């Protein structure tokens, strides 16, 4: 256990810095992110405007802080929805098995037959595009099957393990076994899965917003800002770079945390 684990450290530091900036962004940004003419139009990065300004003279750094906050928030909520629903579903079906298990898993198979972005597209056009809540719901729904499958596997595997059997013999209720006995043992699998889910959610949300069917102004997220910046790429390349690199930073940091967790959990490389 003395082995060094630089991934976790670096990942935590990167994510920590970004999270701190985002939290700061909720209370204070250098300029009002939507204020027009906060500076001269289309200027490159400088001390006054860390990431330059766009064609309206809006400060891109302030906008990126806000946008990253939106993306981050949506990804967190999405993972929460997907993980909670998925784990509960997977736990129940995995532990009890039977016909419900079969039906639900078939349904999961069907859902995974859709590429996730396609499924999200369909769901979002059903719910109505543009609203933050709907984006979370659509993406959350997309992520349920993968969490369910994972939880199901773990629970089905642990069902016949001795300590669970003895708990059952001692008369522990099913819900207690599921909650108190098995769940703590799934953490080593669940935690890295959460980080992967988070990253998938960030990327999926960004893709959707990039296609202009995700979150739209005034809550512009990083994906929407990227599609906006693509039109200004010739005149303000720093807009796309600042936005895109922030996105990469976010996913990279969390990815490293996941890697670190996996290794600490004794998983393979």
């Amino acid at each position: 256990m003395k082995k060094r684990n630089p991934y976790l450290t670096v990942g935590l530091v990167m994510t920590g810095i970004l999270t701190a900036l985002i939290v700061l962004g909720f209370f204070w940004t250098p300029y009002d992110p939507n204020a027009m003419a906060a500076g001269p139009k289309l200027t490159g990065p400088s001390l006054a405007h860390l990431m330059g300004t766009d064609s309206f003279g809006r400060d891109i750094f302030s906008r990126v802080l806000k946008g990253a906050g939106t993306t981050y928030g949506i990804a967190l909520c999405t993972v929460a929805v997907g993980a909670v629903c998925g784990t509960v579903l997977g736990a129940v079906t995995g532990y009890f098995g039977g016909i419900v298990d079969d039906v639900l898993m078939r349904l999961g198979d069907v859902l995974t037959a859709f590429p996730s972005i396609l499924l999200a597209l369909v769901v979002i056009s059903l719910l109505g595009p543009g609203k933050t809540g709907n984006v979370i719901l659509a993406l959350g729904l997309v992520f349920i099957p993968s969490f369910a499958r994972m939880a199901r596997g773990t629970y089905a595997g642990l069902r016949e393990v001795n300590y669970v059997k003895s708990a059952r013999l001692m008369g522990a209720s099913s819900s207690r076994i599921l909650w108190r006995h098995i769940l703590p043992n799934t953490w080593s699998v669940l935690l890295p899965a959460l980080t992967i889910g988070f990253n998938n959610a960030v990327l999926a949300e960004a893709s959707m917003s990039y296609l202009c069917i995700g979150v739209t102004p005034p809550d512009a997220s990083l994906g929407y800002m990227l599609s906006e910046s693509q039109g200004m790429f010739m005149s303000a390349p720093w807009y796309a770079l600042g936005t895109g690199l922030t996105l990469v930073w976010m996913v990279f940091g969390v990815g490293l945390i996941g890697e670190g967790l996996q290794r600490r959990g004794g998983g393979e490389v």
Partner: protein
Amino acid sequence: MRYTARKILTLLVTMLVVSLLTFAAFDMISGDPAATLLGTQATPEKVEALRTEMGLNRPMLVRYGEWLAGFFTGNLGVSFQYRQPVQALLGPKMLVTLCLSLVSFVLIVVVSLPLGLLSANGKLDGLHTFLNQFCMAVPPFFTGILISWCFGICLRAFVPGDFPGLDRNLGKSLVYLFFAAVSIAIPRVAMTVRMLRSTVISEMNKPYVRTAIARGNDRRQVLWGHVLKNSLVPTVTFLGQTMAEIVAGSIVVEQVFSVPGLGRMLVASISSQDYPVVEAIVVILAFWVVLSGTLADLVNRCIDPRMGGIGK
């Protein structure tokens, strides 16, 4: 044989459910294709009349039945938006997406297989991992923007937004698709390398390999002779998944590069409520995904006949 038959049956049933779900889902959307077609000229009476003309006011299941019957006779209906038979409309688009996917797939295989094996020597673990994670963190559409800027605007290797067309200029089109394929491939290459690396390393640590090496066999020989063969099954499964993921990636990347393929058609048709086209594209893409998985399974069974009995 029974195994193959069962696989194909599962595939067909899945497709049936997928098509029914899509049909039902779009039926429930509040938007009305008739009203969309009439645009600013819509009045309630006109919309109602057009709905009748388009046959939209009949029960959903009747229309689904008709669609299904049409599907098996090679008739996917007529696009609302282009008033052309859907199959004629989507034929060329499908070809473009197929080319894009194949180019991406070849790129992924060609780049990641050697890289994966090279990196399996266990050295420079940290660097590999960091690089891997970084490549996985770059969203394809961001790479796409950077590539069109770098190779399109600065180096003039291709003209972003002006796809030459496969039938007009195959060479130029493939160059164009190559750049789009690169942005799809980068994260997938990282994932494949990572998968290969961990498979090979874990295989190398197995007792039989250790024994073989301890007995004085050449390490390299063992690697090529035994380890690779045993790593093949998970690799094929993974590549099957990759095949499926590429399609998802192409939906977004086609948008970035303005490639006239299925993905771009899908996004446009969703917003213009052109359901016959959406339905057809969803079914085609879902079929592609399921097919990749099925093919991977079948190939695996050929490699390792034991597979059929155990997993699915």
